[in-house]
């Protein structure tokens, strides 16, 4: 029977049990493992490699993990989460490297295949990214120059909150409140835009 606990509630012993069951070729254990990690693996692959071939890539990672477990490569079953994360990261890095090599081969062969559009997302996603930036600009129209400077230091110059608070003369709570209000306004405007467009941003 499938384990119905939330994955984030699993403890170290739970991982050991799942690993043992997979090593014993228990098919339901494979299902449990997939149920626990598939969405997380999907999230990281989507974030790093985009939507192309997503299901196949999630499946590839899952196979790598289960094969490694069955081959005894996982030394400490309690560290299953970290192992899965490592497998996914290596898979992402290898995929990027393969793509770069492929591009390099094309570029060396024909100069006119070099195209910046290779690095852009699909058009709908690009539109949504631009819409979000426009919403952010609208958020800032309602913010004072000083508060915009505080946000610019954090989001663009990547200054630490402590530095910003020290130099701009505000408390950490004031800083957090400023960001929180901007984020709330962003969400409100985003929902209005989505409602108008009939979709979720």
């Amino acid at each position, binding site marked *: 029977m499938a384990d119905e606990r939330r*994955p984030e509630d699993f403890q170290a012993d739970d991982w050991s049990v799942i690993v043992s069951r997979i090593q014993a070729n228990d098919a339901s254990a494979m299902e449990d493992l997939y149920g626990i990690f598939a969405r*997380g693996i999907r999230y990281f692959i989507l974030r790093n490699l985009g939507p192309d071939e997503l299901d196949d890539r999630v499946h590839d990672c899952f196979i790598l993990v289960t094969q490694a477990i069955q081959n005894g490569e996982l030394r400490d079953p309690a560290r299953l989460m970290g192992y899965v994360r490592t497998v*996914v990261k290596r898979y992402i890095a290898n995929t990027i490297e393969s793509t770069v090599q492929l591009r390099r081969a094309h570029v060396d062969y024909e100069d006119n295949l070099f195209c910046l559009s290779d*690095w852009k997302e699909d058009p709908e996603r690009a539109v949504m*990214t631009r819409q*979000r930036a426009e919403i*952010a600009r609208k958020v800032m129209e309602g913010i004072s120059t000083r508060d915009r400077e505080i946000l610019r230091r954090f*989001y663009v110059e990547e200054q630490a909150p402590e530095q910003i608070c020290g130099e701009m003369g505000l408390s950490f709570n004031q800083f*957090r409140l400023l960001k929180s209000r901007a984020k709330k306004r962003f969400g409100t405007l985003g929902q209005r835009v989505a409602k108008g467009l009939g979709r979720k941003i």
Partner: protein
Amino acid sequence: MTSHPSDDHLELYTLRRLSRPENEALEDHLLVCDPCRTRSVEAADFATAMRDALKTEPAQMESRWFGWLRINFALAAAFAGLVLAITLYWTTGNTRLAPVATLQLTAMRGSDVATAAPAGELDITLTDAGDASKAEIVGSGGTAVWSGVRTSPIVVRKPLRPGDYLLRAYLPSGQLLHEYAFRIKK
């Protein structure tokens, strides 16, 4: 139960500003926690949108104290810059090349391509290169035009011709971490 990260922590993660151990711990959690993944997507949407929008805003010189002093320093710095520019103009004899251009690159899919004017030196800041230790720039023909240690910013002390380029950032292991596209304007 693994503790859920705060909104601030998630935001720093989406901006790639956590340390490696913090990153790994958070990613272990995100692997298995649906609600936190949803929160991280919301955090990323907001943080990257704000960053994009704020990039187009000029920096403001803000201070609660001695604002007049800052203005005087600003004027003095502007004058010094003008003198330097004139000196460079006469010494280099190149009326079309600025001394320094700057770029800020982010490996974010869907971003507009960053552009810079031709200059004698190009300073490139990578906003999300994390642990990258080496960088390489290749031109549109695939030929490497520059390589070196990844500093912050990366300083390319040679003019790049107008055209499209790729900057590749590598980890100490030699693995490619990110690629960034940019353009030198005509």
